[in-house]
């Protein structure tokens, strides 16, 4: 009884906040409603007995993704009124398509029934005596190891993509190179020159700083690659 009530509460809030994500005028509000929606979805998962999914949803989506969203929305100056114009222009078409699809899906779900033998076809049946963690581990790392590794590859590609598309090694940027700093010796930076008392210093005798080492200048993406590489290693 309580479970049923909780389900309806979670579901109602979920749908309501989802609608508000789309319709809120302030983008920051949109993101906050999105977070609310995530929480309610996590609640629904809990009700269904999928606590692992619920926690993942909270940690990953709320903790990481949504917060990132919030940063981006706040940092980028997006003109939402202009985007709204587009929405108004496409609204009639969108509404028509949406309504038709809704009606169709409603009619389909109205007559929904499971395949009679679906229970026997299930792939990953919850094991009885094993603890939840062990069962999950078995599922992820034994039965679905292929999928797990493939997902890893997908993430690797995403990372490569992000780096390839955005990383720009600016020529002017000066980066701190700790090892070089530490390995610095006095002779490298300091030159002691004896200057005669009262002697004029001609233009040619000015000491200029040593040029940067050639290696760092030749490879504009050097730093970026190192970055990508370490991440790649972590993912594996």
């Amino acid at each position, binding site marked *: 009884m309580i479970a049923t009530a909780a389900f309806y509460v979670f579901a109602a809030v979920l749908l309501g906040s989802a609608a508000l994500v789309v319709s809120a005028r302030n983008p920051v509000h949109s993101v906050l409603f999105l977070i609310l929606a995530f929480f309610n979805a996590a609640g629904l998962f809990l009700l269904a007995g999928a606590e692992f999914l619920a926690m993942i949803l909270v940690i990953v989506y709320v903790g990481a993704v949504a917060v990132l969203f919030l940063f981006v929305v706040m940092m980028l100056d997006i003109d939402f009124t202009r985007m709204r114009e587009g929405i108004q222009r*496409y609204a009639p*078409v*969108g509404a028509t*398509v949406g309504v*038709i*699809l809704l009606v*169709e899906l409603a*009619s389909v779900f109205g007559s929904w029934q499971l395949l009679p033998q679906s229970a026997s076809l299930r792939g990953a049946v919850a094991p009885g005596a094993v603890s939840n963690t062990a069962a999950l581990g078995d599922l992820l790392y034994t039965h679905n190891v292929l999928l797990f590794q493939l997902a890893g590859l997908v993430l690797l590609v995403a990372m490569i993509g992000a780096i390839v598309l955005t990383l720009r090694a600016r020529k002017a940027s000066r980066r701190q190179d700790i090892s070089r700093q530490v390995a610095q010796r006095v002779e490298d930076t300091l030159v002691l020159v004896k200057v005669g008392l009262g002697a004029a210093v001609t233009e040619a005798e000015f000491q200029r700083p040593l040029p940067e080492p050639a290696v760092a200048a030749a490879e504009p993406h050097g730093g970026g690659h190192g970055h990508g590489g370490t991440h790649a290693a972590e993912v594996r």
Partner: protein
Amino acid sequence: MIYAVAVLAPILGSAIAGLLGRAIGDRAAQAVSILGMVIAAICGNIAFAELTWGGAETGTVDLGTWISAGPFHVAWALRYDALSAVMVAMVTLISTLIHIYSVGYMGHDAYPTYRFFSYLSLFTFAMLMLVTADNLIQLFFGWEGVGLASYLLIGYWYDKPSACAAAIKAFLVNRIADLFFAVGIALVFFVFGSVEFPAIFAAVGQHAGETYTLFGTAWPVLEVIGVLLFIGAMGKSAQIGLHTWLPDAMEGPTPVSALIHAATMVTAGVFLVARMSPLLEFAPTAKALIVIVGGSTALFAATVGCTQNDIKRVIAYSTCSQLGYMFIAAGVGAYQVSIFHLITHAFFKALLFLGAGSVIHAMSGEQDMRQMGGIWKKIPATYVVMWIGNLALAGIPFFAGYYSKDAILEANFDVGTGVGLYGFVCGVAAAFLTAFYSWRLLIMTFHGKPRAEAKIMAHVHESPAVMLVPLIVLAIGAVFSGMGFHAQFIGEGWHEFWRNAIVNAPSNHVLADLERVPESIALLPTFMGVLGIALAYVMYVAAPSLPGALTRAFGPIYRFLLNKWYFDELYDAVLVRPAMALARSLWQVGDATLIDGVPNGLASLATDSSAQVVKLQTGSIAIYAFSMLIGLVLLVTIYLLFR
């Protein structure tokens, strides 16, 4: 296996010479294609020798699958039996000699000749594919390849309008025959369910009595196949009715003529008939047709040959006539004799053509015999080999042609049927005419007073060694090939020589009967030959006024013969003009107004709708996404409505 090398070396040479000719230079291209041919000739003749004397097994050399569609299987395979091997040996040998000869003959050509050598090798390769085919489709591949290469070579001097016209004519006439051949192949597949020779030949007996209903009439199916295939052969082998392309093909360079006439093209029809012998043995009507067409051609071409003045045309009609001989032999079931004549003919006809080429070369390109004469002392070597060639052609004893031609006429005589007799009579008459026009050619070309201009006469010279050596080799062949192979081909050794390559029905013992012909009949062709020579001597040496008088006395007949029985004119009036008229009316009414009108309308419709389609492509992601969603909704709706 060396047999495959013999077949494939020419195409390699052709490809290198043709594709890289410009890069590696003319000399190198010639060398490569000749090298390919020499290798092919050596391998081909070794393969032949192994089969004949070395006791090698017959069989097939598989090269791979070509087409496999349902029950229709075609393989790339080389058939290795006496019939194929002898053809391979002959084709590669003659073609090699012609290649070498061409180096000298084409030496004065203004353009680089790598294209020419590439085509020659291609021609040879196509013919080799044809003769080694193990199925009808591969044979057809070679058949069409030969047609293509002949088109390219006849029209080699493409800046000469007459050469282009001749090339097109050769191609078209052959296409007509090929259509029948293709229908024949289809019918074979329809009846036998296979196009592989072993399968067909094994099943012939079961289909002997079957009929095939078309247009409400039941036809004996094997007869229909036999006739269709023979019509195909008629086109390639220039038999009467479909012969008109052959004399015109003289527009190509002379080595090409030699190749076409001796080795690689016209013999294809005879080969086909011999190859299909197991099937033809069950088709007596088709065989009778072969004899009638062959006999008529032999006689017809010989009569025309007597009146022509172009040296190459005379030899061309002589080829036509000799092919007729080969068919009358095949038609009475003596396929072995027919192939025997094919081989001996290859030697002396190549010799005659190359000799004529040498004469033309000496006369600075002059081909009209009326402008020649009195040159025998200036080009003695050519003169001698032309004599040898003509002796062989006329069937004078102990030269090559004697053995084969005699055997043909004897075979026709001793089958004893009416058809056989027709072939015999035509053959004997043609033998007389052959000797006549051969000596007419010799005398007009070499003897008498010089009729050419002084400038040309001063320039007459013997050909270079590169042209003479092939001539001498061919002359040796023209003298000895008859004597040398008589025993194997049609003599006592024929059973073990041919083995199963050619099949004679049990009732067909024409070969065994060859020796039992009366003496008088056996000597008749020789006698007729001598008579022809005598007549030529009388008309062109003893009484030079006689030909003129005869021409005046029998004006209509002379003009009839001179104009080649008006075949070209007949075709022009019956086929070409009506076709042109029909085409013109179709063009102006059907094409210009109807057919052009509809597509033009459709085309503008297409471009208009194209503009509409492209209009949606605005570049906006939202529109793209919406169109995807609309598409999805559409599909779901269609499914829900029409499930």
